[in-house]
């Protein structure tokens, strides 16, 4: 199927914006995606027609919003093929989801002498929480190394696996280099040592089909705002048996069963992990985003984005002095690069003035940048609404930019 990208673009009002008198070319989708009208309209509709706090309400509005909220949980469960709605927890975002697991898992299962495994590709969100919990529990953080292309060294990974490893947490797609990590195989290998696995899917669910049962991961996290949904909402998937054995993370309303002044018993999953008033409006709008992309089809999205990625890579390699950072065999959506004699910040500022939004710097992956011996990169990252024409605009902008610095 060939997608009609121009029709899709019309669903995203912000793409018509002018920036410094130039049509916006938005290539910062790794940081956050833009929102289709259906998502924006759903938020408005909720506030204009149905807003009321969910659960425990006996009145009409509260029943409606509770119903919509629980239907959204169903939509998310279906999207990643969870085996039950209970396995879906709404959080603030990927960072919140990872912190929840690091904290709850660490509290119950980590002690001195244990190891936690992450990869050299991780975003700070999937690194710093583990550093913190390792510091607290005395467990050791082990880093699975990569090669110069940005691919995980599978033999080193297998060497690191042992009974001392208590959990593996790894990204599905690298936000800074675009590498697609072969997580399915890695999860199977971890399971041989009974190691549970958390997948940081912040950069994958919007680009490639993700099926938690096929992957067989114990946990998976992603952010609403990176998958065409609103900010302030995210998802944590967990296998029922695991969610049931983890202690709660935050305390408050909704996550309790019975409370006395001195002690409480907790609700069943998923509510056990949803303390306080949930962000039901954004959860409902996230479900709308998921329906929107499911209608287009994740396979179609992947095909379109791969084509853009291939074309952009090809064109960029023609620019002298441009070096692509991250050349893994399997990549999704993002291209990081440096320009000879041009600092990434300078490049970002100039591209901005040409109407092109890119991200520059360390992309929340400082240790990776240090490892690669650079202070940062310029990153373009694509979404469903990007076109080859936009790539052409980028390429000529880069050429212009080079001239400015010579």
């Amino acid at each position, binding site marked *: 199927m060939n997608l009609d990208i121009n029709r899709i673009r019309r669903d995203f009002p912000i793409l018509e914006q002018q920036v410094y008198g130039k049509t916006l070319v938005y290539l910062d989708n790794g940081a956050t995606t833009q929102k289709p009208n259906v998502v924006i309209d759903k938020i408005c509709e909720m506030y204009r027609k149905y807003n009321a706090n969910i659960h425990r309400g006996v009145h009409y509005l509260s029943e409606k919003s509770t119903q919509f909220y629980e239907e959204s949980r169903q939509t998310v469960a279906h999207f990643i093929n969870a085996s039950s709605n209970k396995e879906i927890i709404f959080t603030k975002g990927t960072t919140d989801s990872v912190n929840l697991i690091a904290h709850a898992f660490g509290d119950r299962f980590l002690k001195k002498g244990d190891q936690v495994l992450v990869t050299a590709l991780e975003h700070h969100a999937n690194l710093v929480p583990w550093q913190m919990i390792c510091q607290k529990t005395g467990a050791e953080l082990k880093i699975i190394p990569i090669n110069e292309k940005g691919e995980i060294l599978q033999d080193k990974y297998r060497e690191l696996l042992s009974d001392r490893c208590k959990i593996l947490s790894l990204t599905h797609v690298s936000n800074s280099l675009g590498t697609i990590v072969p997580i399915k195989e890695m999860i199977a290998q971890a399971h041989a040592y009974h190691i549970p696995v958390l997948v940081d899917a912040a950069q994958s669910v919007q680009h490639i089909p993700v099926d938690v049962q096929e992957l067989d991961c114990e946990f998976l996290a992603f952010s609403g705002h990176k998958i065409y949904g609103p900010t302030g909402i995210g998802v944590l998937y967990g296998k029922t048996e695991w969610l049931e054995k983890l202690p709660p993370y935050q305390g408050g309303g909704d996550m309790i069963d019975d409370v006395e002044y001195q002690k409480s018993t907790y609700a069943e999953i998923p509510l056990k992990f949803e303390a306080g008033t949930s962000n039901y409006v954004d959860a409902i709008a996230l479900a709308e985003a998921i329906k929107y992309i499911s209608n287009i089809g994740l396979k179609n999205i992947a095909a379109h984005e791969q084509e853009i990625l291939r074309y952009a890579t090809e064109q960029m390699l023609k620019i002298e002095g441009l070096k692509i950072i991250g050349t893994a065999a399997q990549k999704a959506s993002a291209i990081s690069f440096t320009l000879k004699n041009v600092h990434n910040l300078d490049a970002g500022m100039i591209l901005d003035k040409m109407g092109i939004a890119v991200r520059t710097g360390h992309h929340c992956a400082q240790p990776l940048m240090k490892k690669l011996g650079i202070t940062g990169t310029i990153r373009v990252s694509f979404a469903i609404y990007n076109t080859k024409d936009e790539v052409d605009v980028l390429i000529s902008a880069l050429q212009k930019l080079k001239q*400015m610095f010579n």
Partner: protein
Amino acid sequence: MTINEIQDQIIAEFDIYAEWLDKYQYLIDLASDTPAIDETYKTNRYLINGCQSRVWLHATLSKDGSISFSADSDAIITKGIISLLIRVLNNKKPQEIKETDLYFIDKIGLSQNLSPTRANGLASMLKQMKLYAIAFDAKQN
């Protein structure tokens, strides 16, 4: 020239460029014309915190009691901006530097066009320059 005369001069120069890209080109050209800082000062000691790019700043007190600055950055536009700051404040007396109000930054539209993080960086540079002035002033008195 006084600090304000130099500021007005810079404002006039930037006025020529209607397009933002041209202003940036001008900053880039300024940076290339600015002599680099002595390599011995490109150390953490002279690094300014709060900038997204690395900025080194060094200052000495001349015999006539004025301050002479030298600076560098790994980002060219940043270096262009510093070179403007230096042009305005170089060879001025600590007292003057301490009290000066740098309105040119707003007037050439730089501050509105800097991201808040970059604006922070600019503020940090300026703060560091004033700190030198305060230090030298204290030394002199």
